[in-house]
């Protein structure tokens, strides 16, 4: 299964994102993104199955967690 990545503003927000997604039944993993993915150097984020990406984005927006899709 292909993965979609959501870059968060911090590692703490990556874990918050994971918790939010877990509450909504979406499995995700906290990962470190490298500079080639973010163009801003090292960052953190979460990865989700591509089929869950749309629901995940909605859940993160509803929870007020800022993210970008690298």
């Amino acid at each position, binding site marked *: 299964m292909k993965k979609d990545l959501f870059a968060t503003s911090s590692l*703490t927000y990556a*874990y918050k994102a994971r918790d939010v997604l877990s509450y909504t039944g979406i499995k995700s993993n906290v990962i470190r993104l490298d500079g080639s993915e973010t163009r801003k*150097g*090292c960052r953190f984020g979460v990865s989700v199955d591509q089929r869950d990406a749309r629901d995940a984005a909605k859940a993160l927006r509803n929870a007020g967690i800022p993210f970008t899709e690298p």
Partner: protein
Amino acid sequence: MIYFDNAATSWPKPRAVEGAVKRLFREPYGNPGRGGHAAAMRAAETVYRARVKAAELFGAKGPHLVCFTGGCTESLNAAISGAVRYGMKVMTGTTEHNSVIRPLIRAGADISYFDSLSDEETILEQVRAGLLLGVSAVVCAWASNVFPTVLPIRRIGALCREHGAVFIVDAAQAAGIYDINVDTDNIDILCAPAHKGLYGVTGCGITVFSEGYDVRSHPPLTVGGSGADPYTAYMPDRLPERFEAGTLPLLPIAALSAGIDFVRSTGIAAIRAHEESISAAILDSLSGVSGVTFYRPSYGPLLCFNIDGKAPEETAALLDSRGICARAGMHCAPGAHKYTAPDGSGAVRISFSVFNTEEEAEYFCDVIKDVIRL
């Protein structure tokens, strides 16, 4: 040995705290936030879990509002140096610890004082008067480290909110013993140690921010690596990274996490009631005994006293020779000791934890009666 110096650092620690520390030696733990490998991520998860628990314990609106430091003094330095500008009018209490007073002096604050040992309404009237005269920040301890006294924090915070002043609270002697909620207690910045009432180990402090506090106008005390955004020249303007430059103290954070679990499962009210029962046993047993003077005595987590004709250090040494750990001197709070020995020599402090027993209190009283006779 009877350990009555829990206001300095608590001992013993719960078994779960010991286990949390040992786990870091058994399993691979990397640097939290400084890598994507399994060991680094395990460390990062440990830190995040501790943030969540601390946020829940102190009523913060999210784990991102909890920052870890090297200790409560560092938390207070960071809070005061960022919030207080040179010449700013700041109010504090008359019995404060040097970890509040010295950062205020260094920041160049124009300091005024309320009488910490007055009754609640007088304290609030003094704070209100200060705010009307332009005080922009109030910094004080929830509970004294010399007397078993507490301040009306929620009401002081409400006054600060009403006047737009920053409210910084030192919870060094309160965390784990009193219910603290940064939101309902109207606190902007709460500073607490891990190793006292939260039963962690030394080397870690907590700074908890209220959700509405403007961190962008608050310069960090320390700058450096934050594990992300390496190309920006400045520390991030978001929490917690803004105030966490460099490697976090993982081992004390893991211990703190287990300590918070212990406090929450035991119950803050139960812990406080137990400590009050120890002080009650001592005060009741020594009531009417001539030769010992307690200062501002009440049932609480600590007691402060002197033996007639003996310097505090001499009394502490005699107690030590009988296996009792107590702390003599000024307790880094010279303002508080204006209310103890008239000669300025300070006093002896005994302070309790949930692990002290009534038998220990009884033995202490027997020793005190012996010391009085010496």
